[in-house]
């Protein structure tokens, strides 16, 4: 700005002096020419009157120059000054400080320009207002949608968990929280905090492979253009419960998909929704019903056969009396046994909902390809896809079936040194034959029977299921056959075909549009977890902010933790509902002096879990987060001293609000938690319980992160590096 002004001043002086200078130059040049054109006598005559001539010329030049300078100044004002002012006003207008019309001045054109700029600015204001209005409307709409969704979630009788593609939880309802608690096999420490939480990974609870398998199924369906892309699996939890998980896709809108860079018209997977159902009861009822039904039908067949045969023998007219009496005895015995059975069944018949294992329609070729991949993953094993009928659609639980085949292949390798298998699929009426074929080695029926009845174990993972269970689940059959002529042996699965076909592609397009748009949140951006932690922004990380209460200040002299409290920060928000608080039995006396500080008496900690149990639970709670504490060196020392004994190591990065505060306000005397809280305007209530202190620390931390950004400290790496330079960083415990 200053430079512009200076240059304008210089240019003005130049503009005023320039005409005079040009005039002078012109006069001198003219005089010189005239002088050259003169003869000797003439020159003498001119020289005589030179003095007066020069005086007159200078006088004339001065007057003319002054007039020209004035005119130039005028012109400069009208065409340069006015424009410079206009520019300044325009800039102010652009900055949005004022909405006044521009003051026109100067020449006609300059005035017209001022009006035109004013019009343009007004039009822009109008647009901005409009955008503001629309943004407000849209936010209101989103807010309403969220409210509705929240209400719906709360009312839902089913557990709902929404995740992004990384498996991080973005949303869950209360029922999911309760169910999680029931499911986690760990003891109910700190009220089961830590199992579920925003930003936590769903894979802490579910096997990654199961979810990936379901997502693969969904992706395949999407790629084929199927509209109803969902899949399900059944799994057992650590707590021994049987859980049915339905996985539904959350799709990016078509626009987003197009932006993400594909000409392909298929919507992209943006995340997924899990619906959880506890099947344990249902399943027990189901198997009871199955048993009853089986006893009624299959169990009666033999008895009926006995009866019918005996009756038909009795119909022979030439039957000798002794024989007749024996057949009558059979009839009497069988009918009595039958009546008894019906009686028992009627008494035991329990009603219950009919639940099915998660059978899904699947293209046979897809299943075979997946099985081949799975077997190939086993070391030293090669699977080849042999003859596969591409038209076959199966109705199967693909996961358990894949496991069964991988298991059989593994046993072939281990026990019979088979390194190569072929997979075949062909139709057989209402069923299909899925064969696992190998060459050479032959085995006994007893071996096959044993394999069929052993629990499936693949690569260190074991399931309670057997191949027979899996086959029964499919209402199929399984056997071993050999073709001597071709030196071939194979396991054959007889599997049901799919009854209907999937929703064809044509119907799919409208299907997407009719889906209620509940995923209008900003939640589904894939997190940048993959990036190096050190380079990630402080405001994008997840934190566990914690505090400990102890029996004293010196852990190396036997002081112990008696309480751990922690809270979580995810996406820059303090999650008040996801706190961790647990008393610890220090297994030593609690000094009265320390009780005065934290208010925890020996009675309160007696019989509580010991530090190893609590550290394990706290470790799970803090999984995948950065630790934050006030004067963290102190708390970390306590944790580290237990590392060797409990086997629980806290290896994640640690931030210290004490050091961060010193970075932000180096001139301040006190960096005690209370002093910082006061300075940053954080309300302190109920201090000196571990959880309350952790919450204060967390709020202080959030304020500090904002202040650090002003100092150019934005990433975790920067914050840690800067912390090291603090004068407090050398304090050791």
């Amino acid at each position, binding site marked *: 700005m200053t430079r512009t002004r200076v240059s304008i001043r210089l240019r003005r002086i130049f503009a005023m002096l320039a005409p005079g200078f040009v005039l002078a130059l012109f006069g001198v040049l003219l005089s010189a020419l005239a002088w050259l054109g003169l003869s000797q006598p003439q020159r003498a005559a001119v020289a005589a009157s030179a003095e007066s001539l020069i005086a007159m010329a200078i006088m004339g030049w001065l007057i003319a120059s002054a007039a020209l300078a004035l005119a130039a100044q005028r012109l400069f004002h009208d065409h340069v000054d006015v424009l410079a002012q206009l520019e300044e006003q325009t800039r102010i207008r652009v900055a949005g400080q004022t909405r006044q019309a521009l003051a026109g001045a100067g020449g006609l054109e300059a005035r017209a320009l001022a009006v035109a700029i004013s019009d343009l600015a007004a039009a822009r204001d109008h647009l901005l207002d409009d955008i503001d209005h629309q943004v407000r409307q849209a936010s209101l709409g989103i807010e309403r949608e969220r409210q509705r969704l929240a209400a719906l979630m709360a009312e839902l009788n089913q557990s709902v968990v929404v995740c992004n593609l990384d498996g991080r939880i973005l949303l869950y309802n209360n029922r999911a929280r309760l169910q999680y608690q029931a499911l986690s096999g760990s003891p109910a420490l700190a009220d089961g905090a830590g199992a579920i939480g925003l930003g936590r990974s769903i894979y802490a609870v579910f096997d990654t492979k199961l979810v990936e398998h379901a997502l693969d199924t969904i992706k395949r369906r999407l790629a084929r253009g199927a509209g109803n892309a969902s899949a399900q699996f059944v799994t057992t939890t650590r707590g021994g419960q049987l859980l049915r998980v339905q996985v539904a896709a959350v799709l990016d809108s078509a626009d987003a998909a197009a932006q993400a860079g594909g000409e392909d018209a298929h919507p992209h997977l943006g995340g997924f929704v899990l619906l959880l159902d506890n099947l344990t009861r249902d399943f027990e009822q189901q198997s009871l019903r199955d048993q009853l039904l089986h006893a009624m039908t299959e169990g009666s067949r033999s008895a009926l056969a006995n009866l019918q045969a005996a009756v*038909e023998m009795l119909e022979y007219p030439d039957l000798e009396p002794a024989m007749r009496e*024996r057949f009558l005895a059979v009839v009497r015995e069988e009918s009595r046994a039958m009546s008894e059975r019906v009686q028992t069944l009627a008494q035991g018949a329990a009603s219950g909902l009919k639940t099915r294992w998660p059978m899904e329609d699947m293209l046979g070729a897809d299943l075979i390809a997946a099985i081949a991949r799975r077997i190939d993953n086993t070391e030293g094993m090669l699977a080849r896809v042999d003859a596969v009928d591409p038209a076959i659609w199966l109705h199967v639980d693909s996961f358990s079936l894949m496991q069964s085949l991988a298991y059989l292949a593994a046993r072939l390798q281990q026990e019979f040194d088979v390194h190569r298998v072929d997979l075949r699929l062909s139709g057989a009426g209402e069923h299909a034959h899925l064969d696992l074929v190998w060459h050479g080695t032959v085995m006994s029926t007893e071996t096959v029977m044993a394999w069929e009845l052993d629990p499936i174990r693949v690569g260190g993972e074991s399931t309670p299921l057997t191949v027979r269970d899996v086959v029964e689940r499919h209402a199929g059959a399984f056997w071993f056959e050999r073709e001597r002529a071709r030196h071939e042996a194979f396991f054959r699965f007889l599997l049901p075909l799919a009854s209907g076909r999937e929703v064809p592609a044509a119907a799919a397009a409208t299907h997407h549009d009719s889906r209620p748009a509940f995923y209008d949140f900003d939640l589904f951006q894939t997190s940048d977890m993959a990036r190096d932690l050190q380079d990630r922004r402080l405001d994008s990380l997840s934190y566990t902010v914690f505090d400990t209460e102890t029996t004293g200040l010196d852990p190396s002299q036997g002081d112990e933790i008696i309480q751990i409290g922690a809270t979580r920060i995810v996406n820059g928000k303090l999650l008040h509902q996801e706190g961790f608080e647990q008393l610890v039995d220090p297994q030593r006396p609690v000094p009265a002096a320390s009780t005065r500080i934290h208010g925890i008496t020996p009675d309160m900690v007696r019989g509580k879990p010991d530090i190893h149990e609590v550290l394990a639970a706290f470790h799970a709670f803090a999984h995948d987060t950065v630790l934050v504490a006030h004067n963290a060196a102190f708390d970390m020392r306590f944790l580290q001293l237990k590392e060797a004994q409990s086997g629980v190591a806290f290896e994640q990065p640690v931030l210290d609000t004490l050091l961060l505060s010193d970075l932000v306000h180096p001139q301040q005397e006190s960096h005690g938690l209370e002093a910082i809280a006061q300075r940053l305007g954080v309300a302190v209530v109920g201090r000196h319980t571990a959880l309350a202190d952790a919450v204060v620390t967390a709020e202080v931390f959030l304020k500090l992160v904002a202040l650090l950004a002003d100092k150019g400290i934005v990433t975790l790496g920067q914050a840690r590096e800067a912390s090291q330079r603090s004068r407090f960083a050398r304090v050791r415990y």
Partner: protein
Amino acid sequence: MAHKILIVDDEPNILLSLEYLMQREGFEVRVARDGLQAIEAIEQDAPDLILLDVMMPGKTGLEVCQHVRAIDRLQSVQIIMLTAKGRETDVAKGLALGANAYVTKPFSTRDLVAQVRSLLPSAA
């Protein structure tokens, strides 16, 4: 010469009827009460036809069937599976493992006799 039939079932109540029936039809009948007895009887003196129950303690009918099919000199023995398992997949399995026919309980004795006769050469 009469055809030799072996009846294998663990239920005496059906054995009684089947034994009487087949004797009446003019066959030379032996009975076995489980899979092991059956195999013993077969190896001692190969029958022309076996009526074989599937569900038996010890060795099941399917195992007996596989055992018989694994022995070359017994290839001509006809096997009829008698079973309470009526599912289509069970039928398929029985036939795959070498049974010539598969009869689901309960059955009509007249049909069974017809089935037996159709599997045996009518020389006698």
